[in-house]
Structure formats: structure tokens, C-alpha cells
């Protein structure tokens, strides 16, 4: 492997590179030349800038200061990035972070192959080859989200290698993977490199054992490069025998100083033998899937018990069952000789639990977190302050008591989690991968605390880990695989039983045995991918339909695999159409009224009958006094009260002017206004009918388009534009913001796909969904609601198409401002609901609006489609009549898409 990489020149050169995230410096003026042709390793603990450096080299992150040259060009220049991105492959940190969980293995690889412009035959050949080489061939139809961690990383590798890169960038590819998968992964890389000797690989890792096999290393700490050179050079330089020791020696003196190896005093042989945990036949099923399969455990009090196994093998599930979080499907567990009962708070008080990821309140300070947990565990109020001080001291958190956890380094946060788990002095600690991602020094401090607890205070510790040197510190360990415990013994005995040199070898041997004959991804095909540079993808222009369709296809598959989303969208709009169609109803009927009749003559009763006989009013029992009138109006029982004065009939007969009193409930002004119109009209009609005063002139009112003035006929053509705006724009916004939140947006940064291809490609499926929605709503309008479509359907459909494109484009524009999905939900609702309901002429015509509302109304696409919809439905209009409304929509589409392309970044900032 040591083939003097310098001769091949440098694959990447960094000069004065700095990077800040707000006030935090991630990289501080780095000068570094990475040799080409070999494996370059970036080593160092979590959060020292390894990932930032790799994302700069990959071109995924925007350069702030300094200069980065990759493959002979300046990465600050967009043209160079576009040219070299087909030669670089980047696998970001996190298991399967740039993959699509609902797509199958084959679909994931196919998507990446399409982005790099391979034709169908070529894609199929590559998928077959890559899956064969990585052992994924039997699983091509399995969704990526259901793969184990190791398989996810192999799939990630397939996707990265699909375009024969010259530079492969891997960010912590093996973190959180069991030793067997890790070993298989590196074997695979080795074979690929053998087949493609020119390829350079740059890897970030926190496993020093792995790094020992690399050609050239960069040791990093706190945004600085500590040292570079081959592993042997680093060992010589520091005079140490292991890279871990070498790294600690390289650290600045105040951090490395005072370091001493962890010592484990032997367990007290005189111990009483009390059993802390005893489980028999513990089983957990999720549907058909057996996550934990008849696990038996017996852990003594004061023992440090290690739990090892690959991701998804059931470790976490077993731990959750033992804490009472998950009721087991079968089997039983006893804690301290008591049957495990989730409702038994006494047991809970004896157990401390620390989950895999940091799960304390980031919005509470360290002190508040400690105090909250102390109170919830019902420590006596007087003792809480003292206890908080005490644990803060023993976990060295005193200086950060008033800081917020997210501002602390990972190691400190993990110590806080442990402190919280310990606050109530439990006699059993269940710790799920507590040191994952913690640097070696912090890890050792952590272990010293735990050993102290176990040996001095007889606290039982049940801990899961991926790290072999941690496993070696346990009193006993269990190896778990596919829901079963393979073996349980002391580390030394396990090594002896397999006659292996190290615990890792012993572990790998057991796993290989367990995974058995050819059913596991571990089965390796003999051949490395036979990479033939056949038919290099054609160079393509700025806009490539095939790449765009790659995104459309992928989005469609994802939508099809999440039927809840599509169903909610379609059923939701139907439901809302009913709600709004019936809800916004201007014809007010059945208003309650009552009469205070002080006259009690035929004439006065005739007046009352005139009102009661109409469909607008419903009569209630008569009113007897003013006090009663007041009371009944206050309760809202009466919308209208009429008072007919005494001598009403007599005065009319004598030609005296009489006055009828009428009171409307003004609490709801719209209703009162309409009621007022009715009362006035009926009063006039009564006068005319009784021939008291005929009108001098007639006014003939013709209600056009909707002669019966039905609310439904008026509302339905307005509801369709509103629904075609709200839901498609929300879905489009979420589809992009989701990629931001889940991390797959990185594929936009590092593949040849352009911003327009990405945006339009993602938009198309939602346009299609919107059109389905449109047809559904139109059908519903004509059939169920009985609203006739009098005009041109072609014009309506064409308008709907342009409008749905515009509506989804609005979603694209919103998405460029939002970072989280919840913000996207609120933002899109506010940004579409208000203009749709108030400014687009749905209820009040745009011409009657004022100020900003009027300006928004004139420009908003919904205003114009509303005119088209009303024209086509109610006014029997066609293309020719609606030209004026098509033009603004046709202008809006390119403007909105152009704007979102401008706002979208092709690099992370």
C-alpha cells in the first residue's frame, strides 16, 4: 500500500482555509496537501473539523476563507466544481444519510446512475455489478431504511462508486457498525482500489485501529492540524506504540496532560452474589419482525456488564424492555428480585437510564436539567441543591452549570447525561452506547467514573458499546446478533474460547459463524467490481431532462410509498371542499325572531305572519315585556325583535304615521346586515301588499349567472382555486425542506444536477398530483354539488395546469426560506391562507381592497385563476374571453421558478 503517493502529486491542496459557524470556529487557517493515489485518513475526536474539511474538499460546503484546490482546480469556482463533480464521490457522515429510506437498494443506485447520465443498459449493468461486489445482490428489492447499518454503508458506497470517481471521500463510514461489517467494508474498499489503482480515497475516522492501515494520516484537534505523515511516522515522532497513544501525545499539553490509562481494580471476591437483573426468554416482536428472541440474562450486583452487537441486532430494544419502557411480548424479567413492572415506581427509582442519543432538554441549562430530574425522582426538596452540587462536582460540570447543553462538547454532554441518570443514586445503570462519538480522553474519564461507581458503591452497570477496548474493561460481556445472545463470558474467556488473538477477532469469528451460510450480506463475492470505463457518460448542457426526470421519478416513488401523505392530500381537499362549500354560506335562513305585540289586532298579527311566513325567519314565542326582550336578545336566542306599538291598526286606519320598532342582534355584523336587508324588503312588500303605499317606480333585479343566488354555485368555483393552492404548495415546500432536514440535499451539492433540474424535477409529481386533485374536485363540483360547468372545460383545465405549476412554484420559493419542517408548515400556511382567503377576490373583489392587500391581490396567481374558474363554471366563457387572465399566470411561472432557483444554493453555507 505504501507506494510513495507523493509521486502521484496531490489530489487536494488547502491553503489558509478557515470556517466558522456563527461564533464557533470549525477550521482555523488550515494548510494541507493531500497526496493522491492512496488512502488518506483524517483522525481525531468528534467535532474537531474533520467533516467540515471533507465537505469543503467535496465542494458541498461553500468556502469562507482560504483556497481549496481539488483535482487541479479552484473549488471556489462554480465551473470547476461542475466539471470535477463527475470525478468526485462523497459519502457524508451518518448511516445512509444521503440515501432515500423508502427507495429500494436498486432504486437508490439507479437514481444516482441517472444523475450521472448513464443509459438504461449501462445502469442495469452497474447495479448488477455493484450489488454483486458488495454482497447486496440478494437485497436489491429491500428499502434502504430497512437495511442494517453495515449494509446501508455498503449501499452508500455503491451509490458513490456508480460513476467511477477518481476521488472517493468517506466521512466516518464505519462509525456505529459492528466489527465484522467494518472489516468487510474495508476489504471491499481494498478490492475496489486494486481494480482502480488511480483512485484516491480520503477518509475521516475516529477508530485508530482502522487508521493504522491507511497510507497517510492527518491528526486534527479543535480546527487545527496537529501532525501529518504515515502511521509509522506518527508513532516514531511521538515515541509511542499505538496510534491512540500517539494521538494523545500530540494533543496540546493542557488536554493531554495528566492522562493516565484506565485501571480496573478487580471485583471484591467477597461479594454477596445478589442478582441485579435476571431475564428469562425475553422476547420482543414488532409485527412479524422478532427484534429480541428469547434472551436470557443474569447480571450480578456491582457488575459491569457489556453488551455488544451490530446496529439493529436488538441491544437497544432489550435495554428498553429492562427499563420498563417497552413491555416485552414474551418472557419475563426481574430487577433486584422483583418482577419488572412498568407501573412500579419503586423499581424505577432504583434504575438510571441513559439512551443512545443525547436526550436531555437542550432548552434547559445544565443546572435546570439536574434539578428537574431530581424533583421528578422526588428527592427531598431540601437536599436537591446539595445533591446537584455534589454530582456536578463528581462529573466535573461545576463550571458549566448555567450553560445550555447544546453549547457543550459531546463528551461533556454525555457526562451530563450520566450525571442525570445518577442524580437519584440508583443501584442499576442502563447505558446505551454512552461513549459513541466521544474522544478517547473523555471516554477514559467517563470509564473512571463508572468503575468507581461499580467498585465502591456496588452500582450495577449494564452498558452497550461498539468499541472493543471498552468491551475489554467489562467484567462480562454478551455478544448479540439478530435478536439472540450468541455467547456470554468474561472478555478473556471469550478470546480463549475462540483461540483468537484479540477480542475483536473472537467477536468477528462468532458473528461469521452466526450469520451462517450465504444468507447474510457478509457473503462476499469474490470479484471486485470490474470497472470498465465503458461509454463514459455524454457531457450534457446546463439543463438535462434526464437528470430532472431522475428526481421526478424518485419523488414519485417516495410519494407512492407514503400513501398517507397522498391520501391526506386528496381526501383532505375533498373534505375541505365540503366544509367550505357548505360553510361559507351567504344566504342566511331561519333567523329567529319574536314579536312584542302591544296592539294585538288582525293587522298587527298580519305583520308578524308576513315575517314568519318567509323562509328567512322562524318565529319564537312572543315577547311580553322590554325586560324579557333584553334578556332574550342577550342570550342570543333572538336575532330579531319586533315591537308593534299600541293602537297600531287604529292609527293606520286614521292615516297617522306609526312606527314599528325592530332590533337586530349586531353581534355578528354580516348576519345582521343580511337580516336588515330582509326586514326592509319584507316591510316594503307588506306595505305594497296592503296597498298602503305603492312605490312610484319599480326596480327589477336580475341576478346573473346564478339566478337563484345559491351560495354553492358561487362558492365552489372559488374553492377549487383555493384548494389547488394550499395543498400542492404545502407538499412542495415540505418535499424540499424535508431533504434539508434529513440531509439528502447534499446530493444536489455534489452531483451534476443543476438547481433548475432539481427544482422542476421535484415539482413535477406535485403538479401531477394537483391535476388529479383538480379533476377530482371538478367532478365533485359537477356531480355532488350540482354546479354546472357552462363554459369551456379545455380553458378551465389549461388554466388549472398553469395555475398548479404556479402554486407549486410558490412552494418552491417558500422552501428556500425554511430550514425545519415545522417552520415550513407554519410559514406556508400563513403565506398562502391569508392571501387566498382575503386578497384573491374569493369573498371581496380585488378592486375593493386597499393598500398592500390590493397589491398582493393584483399579483397573486389565485386572483387570476379565480376569474378563469368563475368564468368557465358560471359565465360560460372560453379561451378567447379569458385571455387577460392567462397572461399573468404565464408570467408568474417563470418568475417564481427563476426566483427559487436564485434563492437555492448549490453549496451548503
Amino acid at each position, binding site marked *: 500500500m505504501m507506494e510513495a503517493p507523493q509521486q502521484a502529486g496531490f489530489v487536494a491542496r488547502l491553503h489558509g482555509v478557515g470556517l466558522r459557524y456563527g461564533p464557533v470556529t470549525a477550521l482555523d487557517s488550515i494548510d494541507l496537501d493531500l497526496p493522491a493515489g492512496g488512502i488518506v485518513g483524517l483522525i481525531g475526536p468528534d467535532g474537531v473539523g474533520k467533516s467540515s474539511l471533507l465537505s469543503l474538499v467535496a465542494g458541498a460546503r461553500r468556502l469562507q476563507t482560504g483556497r481549496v484546490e481539488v483535482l487541479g482546480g479552484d473549488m471556489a469556482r462554480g465551473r470547476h466544481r461542475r466539471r470535477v463533480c463527475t470525478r468526485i464521490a462523497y459519502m457524508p457522515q451518518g448511516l445512509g444519510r444521503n440515501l432515500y429510506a423508502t427507495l429500494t437498494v436498486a432504486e437508490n443506485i439507479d437514481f444516482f446512475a441517472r444523475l450521472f447520465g448513464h443509459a438504461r443498459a449501462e445502469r442495469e449493468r452497474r447495479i448488477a455489478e455493484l450489488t454483486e461486489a458488495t454482497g447486496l445482490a440478494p437485497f436489491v428489492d429491500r428499502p434502504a431504511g430497512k437495511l442494517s447499518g453495515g449494509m446501508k454503508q455498503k449501499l452508500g458506497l455503491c451509490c458513490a462508486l456508480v460513476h467511477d470517481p477518481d476521488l472517493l471521500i468517506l466521512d466516518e463510514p464505519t462509525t456505529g457498525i459492528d466489527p465484522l461489517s467494518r472489516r468487510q467494508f474495508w476489504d471491499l474498499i481494498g478490492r475496489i482500489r486494486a481494480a482502480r489503482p488511480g483512485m484516491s480515497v480520503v477518509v475521516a475516522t475516529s477508530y485508530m485501529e482502522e487508521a493504522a492501515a491507511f497510507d497517510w494520516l492527518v491528526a486534527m484537534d479543535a480546527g487545527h492540524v496537529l501532525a501529518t505523515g504515515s502511521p509509522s511516522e506518527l508513532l516514531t515522532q511521538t515515541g509511542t506504540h499505538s496510534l491512540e497513544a500517539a494521538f494523545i501525545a500530540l494533543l496540546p499539553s493542557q488536554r493531554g496532560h495528566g492522562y493516565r490509562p484506565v485501571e480496573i481494580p478487580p471485583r471484591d471476591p467477597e461479594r454477596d452474589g445478589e442478582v441485579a437483573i435476571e431475564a428469562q426468554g425475553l422476547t420482543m416482536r414488532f409485527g412479524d419482525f422478532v427484534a429480541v428472541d428469547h434472551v436470557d440474562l443474569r447480571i450480578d450486583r456491582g457488575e459491569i456488564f457489556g453488551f455488544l452487537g451490530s446496529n439493529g441486532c436488538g441491544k437497544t430494544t432489550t435495554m428498553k424492555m429492562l427499563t420498563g*419502557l417497552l*413491555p416485552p411480548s414474551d418472557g419475563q424479567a426481574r430487577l433486584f428480585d422483583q418482577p419488572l413492572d412498568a407501573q412500579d415506581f419503586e423499581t*424505577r*427509582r432504583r434504575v438510571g*437510564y441513559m*439512551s443512545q442519543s443525547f436526550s436531555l432538554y437542550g432548552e*434547559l441549562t445544565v443546572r*435546570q436539567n439536574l434539578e428537574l430530574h431530581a*424533583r*421528578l425522582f*422526588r428527592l427531598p426538596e431540601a437536599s436537591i441543591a446539595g445533591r446537584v452540587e455534589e454530582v456536578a462536582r463528581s462529573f466535573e460540570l461545576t463550571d458549566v452549570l448555567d450553560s445550555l447543553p447544546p453549547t457543550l462538547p459531546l463528551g461533556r454532554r454525555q457526562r451530563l447525561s450520566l450525571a442525570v441518570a445518577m442524580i437519584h443514586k440508583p443501584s442499576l445503570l442502563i447505558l446505551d452506547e454512552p461513549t459513541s462519538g466521544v474522544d478517547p480522553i473523555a471516554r477514559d474519564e467517563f470509564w473512571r467514573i463508572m468503575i468507581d461507581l461499580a467498585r465502591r458503591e456496588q452500582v450495577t452497570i449494564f452498558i452497550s458499546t461498539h468499541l472493543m477496548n471498552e468491551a475489554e474493561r467489562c467484567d462480562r460481556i454478551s455478544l448479540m446478533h439478530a435478536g439472540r445472545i450468541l455467547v456470554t463470558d468474561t472478555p478473556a474467556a471469550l478470546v480463549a474460547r475462540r483461540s483468537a488473538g484479540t477480542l475483536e477477532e473472537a467477536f468477528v469469528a462468532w458473528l461469521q459463524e452466526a450469520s451462517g451460510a450465504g444468507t447474510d450480506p457478509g457473503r462476499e463475492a469474490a470479484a471486485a467490481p470490474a470497472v470498465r470505463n465503458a461509454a463514459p457518460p455524454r457531457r450534457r448542457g446546463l439543463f438535462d431532462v434526464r437528470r430532472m426526470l431522475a428526481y421526478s421519478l424518485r419523488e414519485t416513488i417516495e410519494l407512492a410509498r407514503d400513501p398517507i401523505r397522498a391520501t*391526506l392530500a386528496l381526501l*383532505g381537499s375533498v373534505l375541505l371542499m365540503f366544509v367550505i362549500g*357548505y*360553510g*361559507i354560506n*351567504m*344566504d*342566511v*335562513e331561519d333567523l329567529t325572531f319574536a314579536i312584542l305585540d302591544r296592539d294585538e289586532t288582525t293587522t298587527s298579527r298580519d305583520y308578524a305572519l308576513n315575517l314568519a311566513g318567509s323562509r328567512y325567519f322562524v318565529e319564537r314565542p312572543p315577547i311580553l315585556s322590554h325586560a324579557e326582550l333584553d334578556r332574550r*336578545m*342577550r*342570550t*342570543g336566542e333572538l336575532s330579531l325583535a319586533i315591537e308593534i306599538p299600541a293602537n297600531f291598526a287604529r292609527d*293606520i286606519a286614521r292615516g297617522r*304615521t306609526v*312606527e*314599528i320598532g*325592530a332590533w*337586530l*342582534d*349586531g353581534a355578528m355584523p*354580516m*348576519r345582521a*346586515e343580511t337580516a*336588515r336587508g330582509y326586514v326592509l324588503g319584507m316591510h316594503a312588500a307588506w306595505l305594497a301588499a296592503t296597498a*298602503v303605499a305603492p*312605490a*312610484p317606480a319599480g326596480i*327589477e*333585479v336580475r341576478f*346573473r*349567472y346564478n339566478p337563484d*343566488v345559491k*351560495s354553492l*354555485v*358561487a362558492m365552489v368555483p372559488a374553492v377549487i382555486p383555493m384548494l389547488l393552492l394550499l395543498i400542492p404548495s*404545502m407538499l412542495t415546500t*415540505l418535499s424540499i425542506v*424535508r431533504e434539508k432536514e434529513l440531509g439528502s440535499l447534499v446530493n444536489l451539492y455534489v452531483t451534476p444536477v443543476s438547481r433548475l433540474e432539481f427544482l422542476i424535477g421535484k415539482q413535477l409529481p406535485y403538479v401531477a398530483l394537483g391535476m388529479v386533485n383538480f379533476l377530482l374536485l371538478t367532478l365533485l363540483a359537477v356531480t355532488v354539488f350540482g354546479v354546472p360547468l357552462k363554459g369551456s372545460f379545455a380553458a378551465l383545465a389549461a388554466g388549472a395546469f398553469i395555475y398548479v405549476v404556479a402554486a407549486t412554484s410558490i412552494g418552491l420559493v417558500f422552501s428556500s426560506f425554511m430550514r425545519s*419542517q415545522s417552520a*415550513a408548515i*407554519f410559514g406556508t400556511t400563513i403565506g398562502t391562507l391569508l392571501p387566498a382567503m*382575503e386578497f384573491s377576490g374569493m369573498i*371581496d373583489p380585488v378592486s*375593493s381592497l386597499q*393598500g398592500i392587500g390590493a397589491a398582493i391581490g393584483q399579483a397573486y396567481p389565485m386572483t387570476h385563476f379565480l*376569474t378563469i374558474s368563475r368564468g368557465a363554471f358560471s*359565465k360560460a366563457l372560453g379561451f378567447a374571453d379569458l385571455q*387577460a387572465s392567462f397572461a399573468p399566470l404565464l408570467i408568474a411561472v417563470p418568475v417564481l421558478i427563476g426566483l427559487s432557483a436564485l434563492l437555492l444554493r448549490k453549496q451548503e453555507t
Partner: protein
Amino acid sequence: MHAANILNLGLKELRGLARDPGMLALIVFAFTISIYTASTAMPEQLNKTPIAIVDEDRSPLSTRIVDAFFPPFFLPPTLIEQPDVDRRMDAGLDIFALDVPPDFQRDLLAGRRPTIQLNVDATRMNQAFVGSGYVQSIVAGEIESFLRHYRAYTPAPVELALRSRFNPTLTISWFSAVIEVVNNITMLSIILTGAALIREREHGTIEHLLVMPVTPLEIMAGKIWSMALVVLAACTLSLLFVVKGLLAVPIEGSVALFLAGAAVHLFATTSMGIFLATVARSMPQFGLLLILVLIPLEMLSGGTTPRESMPLVIQYLMLAAPTTHFIMLAQAILFRGAGFETVWPHFVAIAVIGALLFGLALARFRKSVGETA
């Protein structure tokens, strides 16, 4: 159930919210700017309504009629020719087109009862209804005062003294300000509690609580009282300073009684928020559910259009929604000055619905805890 746990868990929620400037900004926005714009942006029933007039008479009377239409109710009338009426109305340019026939004035004075034709674009429901009444009374008024100059004209002997109680000028902004407060109480309380629960689930902190001696009931109650308190405080300030202060809406009844009603209502809506959060599997699904629940709640509770005009089935169904009762309660107390002796049935109804929702949410929450942990 342990009261101290509920208190501590609630205090934790308040501390968390205090450190979330985005959420705080949303709350402030919802109870200030949003209420202000919603109540002022909505035009009064008729505002600058476009009207066209075909004057085929060209007499002093017809000129008088043309001049009678002016802002703010109407835009100055566009004078058009007869053949343009259909085209302009098709294009949505006019909502009303008034056609004064030839020799109108002469026929009127001769007592021949001529007829004016009013065309109304009935697809514009709101204007069509209210506006045609206005147009008719304006025209009738002009004719009447014109006639008074020419001959002894006797007005109708029976007059109708029509007055509006509780809002004499039927100012819409009074109503929409209060309804907006009510809607925002509902919206925010559902979002705040629902998002708080989903966030705890996504960050894994809920597991942490569940391994402690804390029951699901205590976790839920902690969220409910704290989030309800926040919304209640925001609503109190908004009612006092934005609605009564800035918008000068006269409030007849007791604000304290209304706030008591709001507290009961919040019990129901925060429970609903928890319930929705247990149904949704992720934030996007919660978002879609939220829209599907909020829009019917806001549209069919009687705050947007009168309950009387809805189909009977919907009227009955919506009695199961707390918002329906809360809107009735708010109108009765704030506008009609009703006291507790009048509105107590609404209090009881909301409390019963709230208790049901709480029980339902608790059952689902307990179940989902078992599934997702």
C-alpha cells in the same frame, strides 16, 4: 397522580418555550399584527364596489341617480352603453350594472311606474346580496326626493325604526377582531401542545421521562396547564391592549368571565393538540392534520358565517366542537354583556367536551407510549 410532578413538568415547558424565540415571535405575531390586520384589512360589507350605469334617459333624474353612487361603498360609476353590459360583466369588471331606460323621468312623472333594471353578478355572493339592497334603496331614495320637488308626495304611513343592538353601526372590525382572538386561541393551543409532544418524541426526551417515576397523565397535564397558561396570558394582553386599546372595540361584558371561559376552552383544545400529536407519526403529517382540523373548526363554528345558514347535520355535528360553544360564549359575553347566569350552559358544554377529549388523548397517549418507546 403527583401534583408536584405536574407543576415541575409544566415549569419545564415554560422554560423551554422561553428559549424558543421563533415560537415566541409566532405567538406575539398571532395576538398582535395578525389580529390587527384581520380586523382592519377586511373591507366593510360594501367597499369600493365597481358599478356601471347605462343611462339611456339622460335626464336630470338619471344624472341624480348616477351621482348618488360614490366611495367608500361604491367606486364612481362607469358610464357604459347597453351592448357593453354583458361583456364587462363576463370579464368580472362590474358587479352591478344599472340600466335606466329611455324616458324614465317622463314616465315617472306621468305616474306610469317605469322600471329600472339592475343586473347583479351573483357569483359574488356577498356583494350580490347586500349590495343589491343598497342599490335599490339608494335609487328609491333619489326617486323619492326627486318627486318631492315636483308634487306633493306622501311618504309611507308605517315606518320601520330598525336598530342594531350591541353593534349599532354593524362595524365588521369589532366582530372580526374578537373572532380572530378566538381563532388564534384555538390554533395556538393546538399547535403548541401538539408540537411540544412531537418534539419530545423526536428528541427522545419522552423516553427519559417515562423511565422516571412519572405517569403519562402527569406528562400530559404538565403540558396542558403550561401551554394553556401561555395562550391565556397572550389572549388577555391582546384583548386589553390590541382589541380594546388599539382597535377601540367597545366590550360590553366582563373580560374576566370571558377569560374564565377561555381557560375552560383551552383545556379542551390543548387536549385536542395532544390527541392529534399521538395520531400523527411525523411533523409533516401533523401539519396536514392540523389544516384538516383547523379549517372546519374555524369555518363551521359560527365565526365565519352564521350557524343558522348551515345544513342541520353540520349544525348538530359542530355542537361536538368546543369552538362552537366558545364562539357563542364569546359573542354573548363580549358583545351582549351576558353574565354567568346566561352563559353557564356553554361553560358546561365546553367542560364536558374537554373532559372527553382529555380522556381520549390520555388513552391514545398511554397506548402510543407503549408503541413508540
